[in-house]
Protein backbone atom coordinates (compact mmCIF):
# COMPACT_ATOMS: atom_id res chain seq x y z
CA UNK A 1 0.00 0.00 0.00
CA UNK A 2 1.48 3.38 -0.97
CA UNK A 3 1.44 6.56 1.11
CA UNK A 4 -1.58 8.04 -0.71
CA UNK A 5 -3.72 5.01 0.07
CA UNK A 6 -2.53 5.08 3.67
CA UNK A 7 -3.53 8.72 3.99
CA UNK A 8 -6.94 8.04 2.45
CA UNK A 9 -7.57 5.32 5.01
CA UNK A 10 -6.42 7.51 7.89
CA UNK A 11 -8.59 10.42 6.79
CA UNK A 12 -11.69 8.28 6.55
CA UNK A 13 -13.25 8.15 10.04
CA UNK A 14 -14.34 4.53 9.53
CA UNK A 15 -10.89 3.23 8.57
CA UNK A 16 -8.78 5.72 10.57
CA UNK A 17 -7.60 3.29 13.22
CA UNK A 18 -6.84 0.56 10.68
CA UNK A 19 -5.02 3.02 8.41
CA UNK A 20 -2.90 4.32 11.26
CA UNK A 21 -2.00 0.79 12.28
CA UNK A 22 -0.84 0.13 8.72
CA UNK A 23 1.24 3.31 8.80
CA UNK A 24 2.97 2.22 12.02
CA UNK A 25 3.72 -1.20 10.52
CA UNK A 26 5.02 0.42 7.35
CA UNK A 27 7.34 2.91 9.02
CA UNK A 28 8.22 1.47 12.43
CA UNK A 29 11.51 -0.17 11.43
CA UNK A 30 12.85 2.77 9.46
CA UNK A 31 11.96 5.21 12.23
CA UNK A 32 13.25 3.00 15.01
CA UNK A 33 16.65 2.45 13.35
CA UNK A 34 16.94 6.13 12.47
CA UNK A 35 16.35 7.00 16.13
CA UNK A 36 18.38 4.13 17.56
CA UNK A 37 21.56 5.18 15.72
CA UNK A 38 21.25 8.58 17.32
CA UNK A 39 20.40 7.64 20.91
CA UNK A 40 22.22 4.25 21.02
CA UNK A 41 20.11 2.83 23.85
CA UNK A 42 17.15 0.58 22.96
CA UNK A 43 14.90 1.84 25.77
CA UNK A 44 15.41 5.45 24.72
CA UNK A 45 14.89 4.58 21.07
CA UNK A 46 11.70 2.70 21.96
CA UNK A 47 10.31 5.68 23.93
CA UNK A 48 11.15 8.13 21.17
CA UNK A 49 9.71 5.90 18.42
CA UNK A 50 6.43 5.62 20.31
CA UNK A 51 6.36 9.40 20.85
CA UNK A 52 7.00 9.93 17.13
CA UNK A 53 3.99 7.83 16.17
CA UNK A 54 1.78 9.50 18.77
CA UNK A 55 2.78 12.90 17.36
CA UNK A 56 2.08 11.63 13.86
CA UNK A 57 -1.37 10.48 14.96
CA UNK A 58 -2.09 13.85 16.60
CA UNK A 59 -1.02 15.98 13.68
CA UNK A 60 -1.69 13.88 10.59
CA UNK A 61 -4.96 15.77 10.17
CA UNK A 62 -2.86 18.89 9.51
CA UNK A 63 -0.56 17.17 7.00
CA UNK A 64 -1.15 19.07 3.77
CA UNK A 65 1.03 16.93 1.47
CA UNK A 66 3.44 19.81 0.75
CA UNK A 67 6.09 17.18 1.40
CA UNK A 68 5.98 13.42 1.00
CA UNK A 69 4.59 11.48 3.95
CA UNK A 70 7.93 9.68 4.23
CA UNK A 71 9.82 12.99 4.52
CA UNK A 72 7.30 14.41 7.00
CA UNK A 73 7.55 11.35 9.26
CA UNK A 74 11.35 11.39 9.14
CA UNK A 75 11.32 15.09 10.01
CA UNK A 76 9.25 14.43 13.12
CA UNK A 77 11.58 11.59 14.14
CA UNK A 78 14.67 13.72 13.55
CA UNK A 79 13.29 16.57 15.65
CA UNK A 80 12.41 14.18 18.44
CA UNK A 81 15.96 12.78 18.45
CA UNK A 82 17.63 16.17 18.51
CA UNK A 83 15.25 17.42 21.22
CA UNK A 84 15.97 14.32 23.30
CA UNK A 85 19.73 14.86 23.12
CA UNK A 86 19.43 18.60 23.83
CA UNK A 87 17.18 17.89 26.81
CA UNK A 88 19.68 15.36 28.12
CA UNK A 89 22.39 18.00 28.09
CA UNK A 90 20.22 20.69 29.65
CA UNK A 91 18.79 18.44 32.35
CA UNK A 92 22.14 17.42 33.72
CA UNK A 93 24.01 20.59 32.69
CA UNK A 94 26.29 18.28 30.76
CA UNK A 95 28.84 19.56 28.28
CA UNK A 96 28.86 17.80 24.88
CA UNK A 97 31.70 15.51 25.93
CA UNK A 98 29.76 14.07 28.85
CA UNK A 99 26.73 13.10 26.76
CA UNK A 100 29.15 11.58 24.27
CA UNK A 101 30.75 9.68 27.18
CA UNK A 102 27.36 8.46 28.39
CA UNK A 103 26.38 7.23 24.91
CA UNK A 104 29.83 5.63 24.43
CA UNK A 105 29.40 3.77 27.72
CA UNK A 106 26.05 2.47 26.48
CA UNK A 107 27.77 1.08 23.40
CA UNK A 108 29.65 -1.36 25.60
CA UNK A 109 27.10 -1.92 28.36
CA UNK A 110 23.80 -2.04 26.46
CA UNK A 111 22.10 -5.40 26.19
CA UNK A 112 21.04 -5.13 22.56
CA UNK A 113 24.31 -4.32 20.83
CA UNK A 114 26.59 -6.84 19.18
CA UNK A 115 29.60 -5.07 17.74
CA UNK A 116 33.17 -6.12 17.12
CA UNK A 117 36.08 -3.90 18.05
CA UNK A 118 36.22 -2.15 14.68
CA UNK A 119 32.51 -1.35 14.69
CA UNK A 120 32.72 -0.06 18.24
CA UNK A 121 35.60 2.19 17.24
CA UNK A 122 33.54 3.57 14.34
CA UNK A 123 30.56 4.22 16.61
CA UNK A 124 32.75 6.00 19.15
CA UNK A 125 34.19 8.12 16.36
CA UNK A 126 30.65 9.02 15.29
CA UNK A 127 29.85 10.18 18.80
CA UNK A 128 32.58 12.81 18.46
CA UNK A 129 30.50 14.55 15.78
CA UNK A 130 27.93 17.24 16.55
CA UNK A 131 24.38 15.78 16.64
CA UNK A 132 23.25 17.24 13.31
CA UNK A 133 26.41 16.15 11.49
CA UNK A 134 26.07 12.66 12.95
CA UNK A 135 22.47 12.58 11.79
CA UNK A 136 23.45 13.49 8.23
CA UNK A 137 26.27 10.97 8.28
CA UNK A 138 23.95 8.17 9.46
CA UNK A 139 21.37 8.89 6.77
CA UNK A 140 23.98 9.00 4.02
CA UNK A 141 26.42 6.31 5.10
CA UNK A 142 24.18 3.69 6.75
CA UNK A 143 20.82 4.31 5.05
CA UNK A 144 22.15 5.27 1.59
CA UNK A 145 19.63 8.07 1.45
CA UNK A 146 19.99 10.47 -1.50
CA UNK A 147 21.16 13.99 -0.60
CA UNK A 148 17.93 15.45 -2.01
CA UNK A 149 15.86 13.46 0.45
CA UNK A 150 18.15 14.33 3.38
CA UNK A 151 17.87 17.98 2.31
CA UNK A 152 14.08 17.80 2.53
CA UNK A 153 14.13 16.16 5.94
CA UNK A 154 16.71 18.47 7.47
CA UNK A 155 15.62 21.56 5.55
CA UNK A 156 19.22 22.13 4.42
CA UNK A 157 20.70 22.64 0.97
CA UNK A 158 22.27 19.70 -0.85
CA UNK A 159 25.57 21.60 -1.07
CA UNK A 160 25.69 22.15 2.68
CA UNK A 161 24.90 18.47 3.24
CA UNK A 162 27.69 17.33 0.94
CA UNK A 163 30.15 19.58 2.77
CA UNK A 164 28.88 18.33 6.13
CA UNK A 165 29.25 14.69 5.10
CA UNK A 166 32.71 15.29 3.70
CA UNK A 167 33.85 16.94 6.97
CA UNK A 168 32.30 14.15 9.00
CA UNK A 169 34.23 11.50 7.02
CA UNK A 170 37.47 13.43 7.53
CA UNK A 171 36.89 13.73 11.28
CA UNK A 172 36.05 10.04 11.60
CA UNK A 173 39.12 8.96 9.63
CA UNK A 174 41.29 11.27 11.69
CA UNK A 175 39.91 9.71 14.89
CA UNK A 176 40.44 6.18 13.55
CA UNK A 177 44.02 7.03 12.58
CA UNK A 178 44.87 8.59 15.96
CA UNK A 179 43.20 5.96 18.10
Amino acid at each position, binding site marked *: MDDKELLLKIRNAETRSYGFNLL*VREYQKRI*YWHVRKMVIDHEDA*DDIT*QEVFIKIHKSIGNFREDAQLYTWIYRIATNECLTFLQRKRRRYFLPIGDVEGELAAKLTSSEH*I*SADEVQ*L*KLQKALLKLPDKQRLVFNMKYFDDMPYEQIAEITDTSVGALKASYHHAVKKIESYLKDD
Partner: protein
Amino acid sequence: MKRLEDIPKKEIFNVPERYFDKLPGIVQTRVGKAETGSRTTAFGYAFRYAAAFSLIGVGVLFWFRPSAQSESPESMLANVETVDLVAYLNESDLTTEELMDELLLDQSDAAGIEEQVYNLGLDDEHLEEILDEIN
Protein backbone atom coordinates in the same frame (compact mmCIF):
# COMPACT_ATOMS: atom_id res chain seq x y z
CA MET B 1 43.02 1.58 9.93
CA LYS B 2 42.86 4.95 8.24
CA ARG B 3 39.93 5.00 5.84
CA LEU B 4 36.21 4.67 6.41
CA GLU B 5 35.77 2.47 3.36
CA ASP B 6 38.03 -0.16 4.96
CA ILE B 7 35.37 -0.78 7.59
CA PRO B 8 32.56 -3.07 6.45
CA LYS B 9 29.08 -1.64 6.92
CA LYS B 10 27.38 -3.73 9.53
CA GLU B 11 24.29 -3.33 11.69
CA ILE B 12 25.44 -3.63 15.29
CA PHE B 13 22.20 -2.73 17.04
CA ASN B 14 19.48 -5.27 17.66
CA VAL B 15 16.12 -5.34 19.41
CA PRO B 16 14.38 -7.65 21.90
CA GLU B 17 12.63 -10.62 20.37
CA ARG B 18 9.37 -9.82 18.52
CA TYR B 19 9.79 -6.13 19.30
CA PHE B 20 8.40 -5.01 15.94
CA ASP B 21 5.44 -7.38 16.25
CA LYS B 22 4.44 -5.77 19.53
CA LEU B 23 5.18 -2.11 18.80
CA PRO B 24 2.07 -1.33 16.66
CA GLY B 25 -0.19 -2.67 19.45
CA ILE B 26 1.63 -0.60 22.07
CA VAL B 27 1.33 2.52 19.93
CA GLN B 28 -2.38 1.88 19.28
CA THR B 29 -3.01 1.47 23.01
CA ARG B 30 -1.20 4.71 23.80
CA VAL B 31 -3.02 6.57 21.06
CA GLY B 32 -6.35 5.25 22.39
CA LYS B 33 -5.49 6.36 25.92
CA ALA B 34 -4.38 9.78 24.68
CA GLU B 35 -7.67 10.19 22.80
CA THR B 36 -9.74 9.17 25.83
CA GLY B 37 -7.64 11.45 28.01
CA SER B 38 -8.08 14.42 25.71
CA ARG B 39 -11.84 13.82 25.55
CA THR B 40 -12.00 13.63 29.35
CA THR B 41 -9.86 16.73 29.62
CA ALA B 42 -12.09 18.56 27.14
CA PHE B 43 -15.17 17.54 29.14
CA GLY B 44 -13.43 18.59 32.34
CA TYR B 45 -12.62 22.01 30.92
CA ALA B 46 -16.19 22.38 29.60
CA PHE B 47 -17.59 21.44 33.01
CA ARG B 48 -15.27 23.85 34.83
CA TYR B 49 -16.14 26.70 32.47
CA ALA B 50 -19.87 25.91 32.75
CA ALA B 51 -19.62 25.95 36.56
CA ALA B 52 -17.69 29.22 36.50
CA PHE B 53 -20.17 30.85 34.13
CA SER B 54 -23.09 29.62 36.25
CA LEU B 55 -21.54 31.16 39.34
CA ILE B 56 -20.99 34.43 37.52
CA GLY B 57 -24.59 34.29 36.26
CA VAL B 58 -25.95 33.74 39.77
CA GLY B 59 -23.77 36.61 41.02
CA VAL B 60 -25.07 38.94 38.31
CA LEU B 61 -28.69 37.97 39.03
CA PHE B 62 -28.12 38.52 42.75
CA TRP B 63 -26.46 41.88 42.14
CA PHE B 64 -29.14 43.20 39.80
CA ARG B 65 -32.21 41.63 41.43
CA PRO B 66 -34.96 44.05 42.60
CA SER B 67 -33.70 45.24 45.96
CA ALA B 68 -35.73 44.03 48.95
CA GLN B 69 -34.45 47.01 50.91
CA SER B 70 -36.37 49.36 48.67
CA GLU B 71 -39.60 48.11 50.28
CA SER B 72 -40.72 50.07 53.34
CA PRO B 73 -40.98 48.24 56.71
CA GLU B 74 -44.69 49.02 56.73
CA SER B 75 -45.33 47.34 53.40
CA MET B 76 -43.19 44.36 54.41
CA LEU B 77 -45.12 44.07 57.66
CA ALA B 78 -48.41 44.35 55.81
CA ASN B 79 -47.55 41.12 54.00
CA VAL B 80 -47.18 39.20 57.26
CA GLU B 81 -50.28 37.40 58.48
CA THR B 82 -51.70 38.60 61.84
CA VAL B 83 -51.61 35.05 63.18
CA ASP B 84 -47.87 34.87 62.42
CA LEU B 85 -47.27 38.21 64.08
CA VAL B 86 -49.11 37.19 67.24
CA ALA B 87 -47.23 33.89 67.31
CA TYR B 88 -43.93 35.74 66.94
CA LEU B 89 -44.75 38.19 69.72
CA ASN B 90 -45.87 35.38 72.05
CA GLU B 91 -42.68 33.46 71.48
CA SER B 92 -40.29 36.40 71.63
CA ASP B 93 -38.75 37.72 74.84
CA LEU B 94 -39.78 41.28 74.15
CA THR B 95 -41.53 42.97 77.08
CA THR B 96 -44.43 45.37 76.62
CA GLU B 97 -42.16 48.24 77.71
CA GLU B 98 -39.59 47.35 75.05
CA LEU B 99 -42.30 47.17 72.43
CA MET B 100 -43.68 50.52 73.53
CA ASP B 101 -40.21 52.06 73.38
CA GLU B 102 -39.89 50.97 69.76
CA LEU B 103 -43.21 52.49 68.78
CA LEU B 104 -43.29 56.04 67.54
CA LEU B 105 -46.85 57.11 68.15
CA ASP B 106 -48.23 60.38 66.96
CA GLN B 107 -51.26 62.26 68.30
CA SER B 108 -53.80 60.38 66.18
CA ASP B 109 -52.35 56.97 67.21
CA ALA B 110 -52.67 57.97 70.90
CA ALA B 111 -56.29 59.09 70.38
CA GLY B 112 -57.10 55.81 68.65
CA ILE B 113 -55.68 53.77 71.52
CA GLU B 114 -57.60 55.87 74.10
CA GLU B 115 -60.78 55.33 72.14
CA GLN B 116 -60.24 51.56 72.10
CA VAL B 117 -59.37 51.41 75.83
CA TYR B 118 -61.91 53.75 77.30
CA ASN B 119 -64.81 53.60 74.88
CA LEU B 120 -65.63 49.94 74.88
CA GLY B 121 -69.10 50.52 73.47
CA LEU B 122 -70.79 48.74 76.43
CA ASP B 123 -74.21 49.83 77.65
CA ASP B 124 -75.23 49.82 81.33
CA GLU B 125 -77.20 46.57 81.08
CA HIS B 126 -74.19 44.76 79.58
CA LEU B 127 -71.92 46.14 82.27
CA GLU B 128 -74.26 44.95 85.05
CA GLU B 129 -74.26 41.44 83.60
CA ILE B 130 -70.47 41.40 83.61
CA LEU B 131 -70.34 42.65 87.22
CA ASP B 132 -72.81 39.96 88.28
CA GLU B 133 -70.68 37.30 86.69
CA ILE B 134 -67.59 38.55 88.50
CA ASN B 135 -69.36 38.66 91.86
